[in-house]
């Protein structure tokens, strides 16, 4: 068992670098369209790729590096995914002009369920 341990550690170091690099690539790919033109919603789609998924990959890479701190890293991962996704939804639905349907009833799931 003991000769396997350094090998596992070296492997986890390499995998963590790989995850961090992949997250960085997603960051660049998803943030670059902000500089270009194009539809606002399309840019939001790509920003969700970079900020949610890329950052989650980076957090996984950090988790391989410091496994002793897993509770806080798990909390950060959960918070990152939930908050960024909900913020993308709020930005998309708020940036649109209001829907021109005759019954103006706002049944959208507003923040009433954020009380958890």
């Amino acid at each position, binding site marked *: 068992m003991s000769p396997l341990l350094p090998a596992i550690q070296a492997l986890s170091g390499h995998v963590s670098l790989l995850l961090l690099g992949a997250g960085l690539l997603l*960051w660049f790919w998803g943030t670059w369209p*902000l*500089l270009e033109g194009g539809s606002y919603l399309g840019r939001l789609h790509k920003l969700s790729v970079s900020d949610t998924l890329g950052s989650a990959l980076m957090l996984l890479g950090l988790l391989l590096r410091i496994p002793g701190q897993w509770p806080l890293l798990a909390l950060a991962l959960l*918070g990152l995914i939930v908050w960024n996704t909900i913020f993308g939804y709020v930005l998309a639905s708020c940036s649109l002009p209001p829907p021109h349907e005759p019954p103006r009833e706002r049944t959208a799931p507003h923040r009433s369920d954020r009380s958890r």
Partner: protein
Amino acid sequence: MTVLIWGMLLALLIPIAVVCRPCSVWDRMAAFSSIASKVALIMMVVAVIRDDWMLGLVGAISLSAGNSGMLLLANLLREVER
């Protein structure tokens, strides 16, 4: 790891450049939310490199608190624009 930090800082410069240009307010909100999560992630990576977990704690808390102020601001702007 140093290369990684430089790359992350370069990626952080992109939304900052977007904010510095004249653009619509919604573009600006998206860029600011991107800045927020990127800065928190950079904080945690720096914490791992310098082996100083207090810094990482700040990053983790700011990630889990999220940009809830921006969320309220977006709702407020929508109501104002209406």
